[in-house]
């Protein structure tokens, strides 16, 4: 909403500059976003005539001028411009002038020659870019005239008006507020109100849901023509286009009082103007020339022939004011906000009028606005208004809202007595009466006690409130525990070289199907196919990040993301941990250690470490549509996620540009990891067992196995037989020979380290030997293992 400062000053007597008024309005809740300024508002800049100009003795590019600024004594000015000739009139900033950018003009020497001011370009005056060089004024300009008279400053505020304050949608309302906040004095004017009469043959309300009040004033003998200069300037200053004097007056009064008005050509109206809902499908041509098909939800102003206006939204071409109009019917009404909003939206027509009716107009103000517009029409277009205003419906009585001083004090946390509260509210025209406070008609937003408390808070000023910072601490919640767990996990992963990713949850459906099971949640009104579903897996987002980073030439990628995924089944939303690795295992360095690309086991190891040592994570082979090599991740024996290697085809799709290697991905349910993790301490401290005091004995075995025999069989066979002395088994070398020389074809060599240890004594060589022998026997029988060398 544009508020012109000079227009505002018609209703507000103030000597404050624009910046101060803007600050006061902002503190009151009218956020002034920008102050546009056209024209010159700088004192001590005047029109001056160049009398002579000579070359500067010490500078090629400068000249020394004598100018007449009307003060009687010519001034000497050093100037760099070249676009003038002797006798030209130009703007002169005299010493003391403060130019835009807080640049003060002083008497001073330029390259050794005294200069008593500055001749200005249009840019230097803030009049826009303009031509290069000095602004050459018209030859008939009187020397000495302040530039602020030649280019009157037109400062315009761009204000964000909150939807609860439609009274601020006119200059008068803003002036009222400014005055209440000590920005100046309100210049009140109350036009003489005409007498009113009900006459259903002129104005009627057939749809009381759509309008509570409707009025028509007939003005005969008007002469439609262009508006006077002052009116055009006012409208242009707030971004409106001048149309003709009648329409301009209705717009002017709307931007003055916030009450929209409409003028019909009286000769084009047959019978009574009636507020009613339309008949379904009724055709209507709006003032902008567009044809609309109305629905039965659209309120119209209809005469005997049909709709002449969509109530509160737009007039129609058939009955609009034109050059031939001599009699007008001036409408001033109170339409129902919700009805106007619904209709405006359905028709796709939003106007200055509908904007105001949607938010609610000052009910009492409809009469004053009508009288004000009639007077202005008579003033600039002539004519004679009817002595009576024909009305339908009624204006509501003023409301009284109760207010308890204690409530004000406790809710705001301030000390203030009841009289001071009443004095503050009085500034807004809110009068203390029996039973509470009487609300002015333009404040539809004040209906409850709390609404008045807000007004007290605004006027008292939050800056005057002494801040306190107390409260009852809340016990930590399940969400706190989940947050802390995720926080710890994030830190562990970043500590082990993973970078945290965050991807959007709205994504394309195509990517989702590959990595998620169950129904995908779709959005009914997406911003395009690429954002049409809620992600069901974190993997596609991570793969997109991999692809992007590979394109940037990154050689080792380790990413994780903790975030929500969505699906149609319960739980509809769950938090997952997604991981992806690809490229080299480590950064290149000067040691020259052999390079290796990551594989499944690099990520398997990371995941295994996420678990609780007392309840280790286990893995089992799984089939997955998009991961030809896949393992199901089990925590506490229950499925908690998937780990796998992308298919070569999918890998190629991610690795545009011929990169090498595998892409390994994993996705786990965060709640499952959290559930198996505990607090780091065991509920049963004894379950950790004693820290072993006696030395361990290591024995290595080299086994020859069928190539297909899984390591897990060896591990289970060794550990599963209740071999009391054996505490762990670790594989440390696996070898097969495609030539069949070192190891027979179809066989593989597996070296394992067996660790033997007892908590209560040192082991003897004999008993370890016996245990190894038993294990070897079992491995031979169960896994077909032979002992090598």
């Amino acid at each position: 909403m544009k508020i012109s400062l000079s227009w505002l000053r018609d209703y507000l007597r103030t000597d404050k500059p624009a910046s101060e008024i803007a600050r006061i309005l902002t503190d009151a809740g009218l956020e002034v976003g920008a102050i546009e300024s056209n024209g010159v508002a700088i004192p001590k800049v005047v029109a001056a005539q160049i009398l002579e100009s000579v070359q500067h003795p010490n500078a090629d590019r400068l000249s020394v001028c004598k100018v007449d600024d009307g003060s009687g004594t010519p001034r000497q000015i050093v100037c760099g411009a070249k676009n003038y000739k002797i006798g030209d009139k130009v703007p002169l900033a005299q010493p003391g002038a403060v130019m835009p950018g807080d640049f003060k003009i002083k008497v001073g020497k330029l390259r050794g020659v005294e200069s008593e001011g500055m001749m200005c370009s249009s840019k230097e005056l803030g009049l826009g870019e303009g031509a290069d060089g000095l602004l050459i004024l018209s030859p008939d300009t009187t020397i000495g005239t302040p530039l602020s008279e030649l280019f009157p400053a037109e400062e315009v505020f761009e204000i964000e008006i909150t939807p609860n304050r439609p009274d601020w949608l006119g200059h008068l309302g803003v002036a009222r507020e400014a005055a209440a906040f000590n920005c100046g004095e309100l210049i009140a004017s109350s036009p003489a109100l005409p007498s009113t009469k009900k006459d259903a043959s002129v104005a009627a309300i057939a749809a009381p849901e759509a309008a509570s009040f409707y009025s028509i004033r007939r003005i005969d003998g008007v002469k439609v023509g262009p508006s006077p200069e002052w009116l055009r300037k006012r409208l242009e200053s707030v971004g409106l286009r001048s149309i003709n004097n009648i329409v301009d007056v209705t717009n002017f009064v709307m931007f003055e009082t916030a009450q929209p008005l409409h003028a019909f050509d009286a000769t084009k109206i047959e019978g009574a103007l009636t507020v009613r809902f339309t008949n379904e499908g009724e055709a209507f041509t709006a003032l902008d020339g567009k044809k609309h098909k109305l629905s039965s939800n659209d309120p119209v102003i209809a005469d005997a022939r049909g709709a002449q206006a969509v109530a509160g939204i737009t007039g129609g071409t058939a009955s609009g004011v034109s050059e031939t109009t001599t009699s007008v019917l001036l409408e001033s009404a109170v339409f129902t906000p919700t009805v106007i909003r619904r209709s405006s939206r359905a028709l796709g027509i939003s106007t200055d009028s509908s904007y105001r009716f949607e938010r609610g107009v000052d009910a009492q103000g409809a009469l004053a606005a009508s009288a004000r517009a009639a007077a202005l029409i008579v003033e600039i277009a002539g004519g004679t208004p009817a002595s009576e205003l024909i009305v339908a419906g009624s204006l509501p009585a003023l409301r009284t809202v109760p207010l308890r001083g204690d409530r004000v004090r406790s809710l705001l946390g301030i000390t203030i007595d009841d009289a001071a509260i009443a004095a503050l509210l009085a500034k807004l025209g809110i009068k203390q009466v029996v039973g509470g406070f009487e609300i002015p008609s333009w404040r539809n937003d004040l209906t409850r006690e709390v609404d008045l408390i807000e007004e007290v808070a605004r006027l008292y000023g939050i800056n005057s409130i002494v801040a306190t910072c107390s409260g009852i601490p809340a016990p930590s919640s399940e969400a706190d525990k989940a947050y802390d767990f995720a926080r710890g996990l994030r830190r562990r992963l970043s500590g082990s070289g993973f970078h945290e990713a965050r991807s959007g949850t709205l994504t394309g459906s195509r990517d989702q199907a590959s990595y998620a099971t169950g129904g995908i949640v779709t959005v009914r009104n997406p911003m395009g196919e690429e954002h049409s579903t809620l992600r069901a897996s974190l993997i596609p987002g991570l793969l997109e990040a991999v692809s992007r980073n590979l394109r940037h030439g990154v050689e080792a990628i380790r990413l994780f993301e903790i975030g929500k995924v969505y699906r149609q089944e319960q739980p509809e939303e769950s938090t997952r941990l997604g991981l992806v690795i690809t490229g080299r295992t480590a950064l290149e360095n000067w040691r020259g250690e052999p390079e290796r690309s990551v594989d499944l086991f690099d990520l398997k190891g990371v995941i295994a470490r996420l678990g609780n040592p007392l309840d280790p994570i286990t893995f089992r082979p799984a089939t997955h549509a998009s991961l030809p090599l896949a393992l199901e991740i089990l925590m506490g024996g229950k499925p908690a996620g998937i780990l796998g290697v992308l298919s070569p085809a999918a890998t190629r799709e991610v690795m545009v540009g011929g990169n090498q290697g595998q892409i390994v991905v994993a996705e786990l349910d965060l709640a499952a990891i959290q559930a198996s993790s505990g607090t780091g301490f065991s509920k049963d401290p004894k379950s950790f067992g004693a820290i072993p005091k006696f030395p361990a004995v290591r024995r290595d075995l080299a086994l020859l196995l069928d190539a297909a025999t899984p390591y897990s069989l060896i591990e289970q066979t060794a550990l599963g037989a209740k071999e009391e002395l054996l505490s762990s088994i670790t594989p440390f070398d696996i070898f097969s020979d495609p030539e069949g020389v070192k190891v027979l074809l179809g066989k593989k060599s597996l070296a394992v380290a067996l660790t033997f240890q007892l908590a209560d004594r040192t082991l003897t060589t004999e008993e370890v030997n016996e245990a190894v022998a038993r294990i070897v026997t079992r491995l031979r029988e169960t896994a077909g293992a032979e002992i090598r060398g």
Partner: protein
Amino acid sequence: METQIEQLRVEALSAIAEASDAVALKEARVRYLGKTGSVSLLSEGMRTLSKEERPVMGKLLNELRAAVTAALDEKEGALTAAADAAALASIDTSLPGTAPEAGSLHPLTLLVDRAVQIFRRLGFAIADGPDIETEWHCFDALNTPADHPARNEQDTFYLPDGRLLRTHTSSIQIRTMLANPPPIRIIAPGAAYRRDEVDATHLAQFTQMEGLYVAPGVSLADLKGTIEFFFRELFGPGTEIRFRPHFFPFTEPSYEIDLRAEALGGKWMELAGCGMVDPAVFEEVNKQRGDSAYDPEKVSGFAFGFGLDRLAMNLTGVSDIRMLTENDLRFLSRFTA
């Protein structure tokens, strides 16, 4: 004999002194102190001495042995130290270190976490709620009129079943009050969605932090103090905070919060909305709960909410908000945890 002993001492000590490496020193040790070494051979000669001479020569011989041993040990120590020093001196310590690659935490994570830790100092607990919300939780319960523009399909994402993607984390206020009686003191970091065209300053999904405190006697002064404490902790004690009266359907009085801090580039920045919980919100919660736990005559509360994405942009110096979701490692790796 005495002369022999003295000659041997001079010879041995000079040989030891001349030994230039561990091998030469070992040779010297064998030559003088070995079973067939010079000192041992001299000791053999003791047998030929008289009873009176024997103790005297024995003492001299012992002194010789001790002196040679000491010289050998000292030289050995010196040689070892020299070798150790040489080994260290050959290391080019100017080579870069070779730690495994460092990971990083997303700047939004770091920001959320700083905010969470500050609010925890003030005794706030975390609350959460679903991104997929009902219109009731997101709008009706928050006193938003049925025909409010925020509800329309141009601004809000809807699911086919009529539910929506929450447009603010304020719906978590409602869920928390429905599930718990007062007092409530929560913060809720989370995602929210608006149908904005994605560009350098807008995302359709953004990160918010919501706060709510409801208890008997909570006042606007408490809100002011809490907000000021929080932002001064976050951006430093010199942070300027400005409250501008504003309008939100779910709070009254309502304010927008502007900040100016060095950490944010020293410019005023519109950052947050806050206010005292509107009694209409309490009434709606009571209606849904079927009790009067949130009787506006008995409890009052404040609420606040702010977006974290633009803050993260300011703190990380990126000019394009999309950087926060593109997972570019050149950007992410700056935030080593």
